[in-house]
């Protein structure tokens, strides 16, 4: 039993070191980015279209469709300016860190029927 403990400890240390060195698109350590805060742009929908996160969370959107989408804060016709990914083609990602509490609706500027909302607590 004693002989198996050290390799496991080494793996944990290595994982911690790798996490400290990794970076997200926002420059935040990858280990601090929750994997659950991900939204897929798929089938002309944001999935999930409603996300609730604590302040300080970075959300990542990934385009799975074979056409450009945007992640634009606000409502169609009235963008809020809080964030705008610009056109993202298939497999491209966009990240945004939500620092303040509130509700943040967003939409795709190319396909106004695509809408989502992030609620920050």
């Amino acid at each position, binding site marked *: 039993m004693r002989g198996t403990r050290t390799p496991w400890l080494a793996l944990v240390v290595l994982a911690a070191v790798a996490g400290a060195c990794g970076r997200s698109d926002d420059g935040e350590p990858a280990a601090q980015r929750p994997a659950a805060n991900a939204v897929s742009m798929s*089938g002309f*929908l944001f999935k999930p279209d409603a996300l609730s996160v604590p302040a300080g969370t970075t959300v990542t959107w990934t385009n799975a469709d*074979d056409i450009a989408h945007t992640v634009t804060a606000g409502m169609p016709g009235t963008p809020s300016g809080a964030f705008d990914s610009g056109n993202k083609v298939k497999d491209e990602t966009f990240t945004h860190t939500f620092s303040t509490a509130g509700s943040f609706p967003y939409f795709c500027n190319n396909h106004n*029927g695509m809408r989502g909302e992030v609620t920050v607590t």
Partner: protein
Amino acid sequence: MRKKIIGRFALAATLVLVGAACGDKANTTADKAAAPSVTDASSVLLVTLDAGLKEHVYLAGLATENALGGRKAGFEAAAAALDENSVALSMAIGSVFGADAEKAFLPLWRSHIGFVVDYTSNFGNKAVQDKAVSDLLGYTETFGAFLNGAIPAVPKTAAADLVKTHILTLKDVIDAQQAKDYVKADSMLRTAAHHMGMISSALVDAIVKQFPEKFA
């Protein structure tokens, strides 16, 4: 409301099936043997989709004719019926591909109707009309991507081409209506409606192959 809309398509499909059955009685024995089955799921889907897409064209033509004729009440009534048709089409899509596809389809489908309205309402404003045409052509790529995403066997470009022909045939109708050439407008309307048969056939053929367990 949902039941009413589904009921309209179901009624149309049923009438076709009953008509086929009743007509069959008047045929010879050889004709009966050769008569195709219209009760299988794929045939029902084809009838439903075909009826819905052709209804879309005729209602769109009715709406644009009323709009160009300055008949506001007529336009609004036709536009309301056209939207009922859009909802019914989205439900037909959902019946095959699920709730997410239904949810995504409806706003996409409605958007191209909006561009058609923009075109129809701006014969005196070339810049706005040109933008509407540009939006409609862009829409063909969008809807092509949507169809390809739902039905991978239908290439994005092929789906876009089918939608493009729909757009252009409908534009021919509107242009003829604007010119008050009603003979040409109605002839173009039949052409536009018949083209929808190509779309429904292509889609159902691919859908049946994609979901053999549903349409065996």
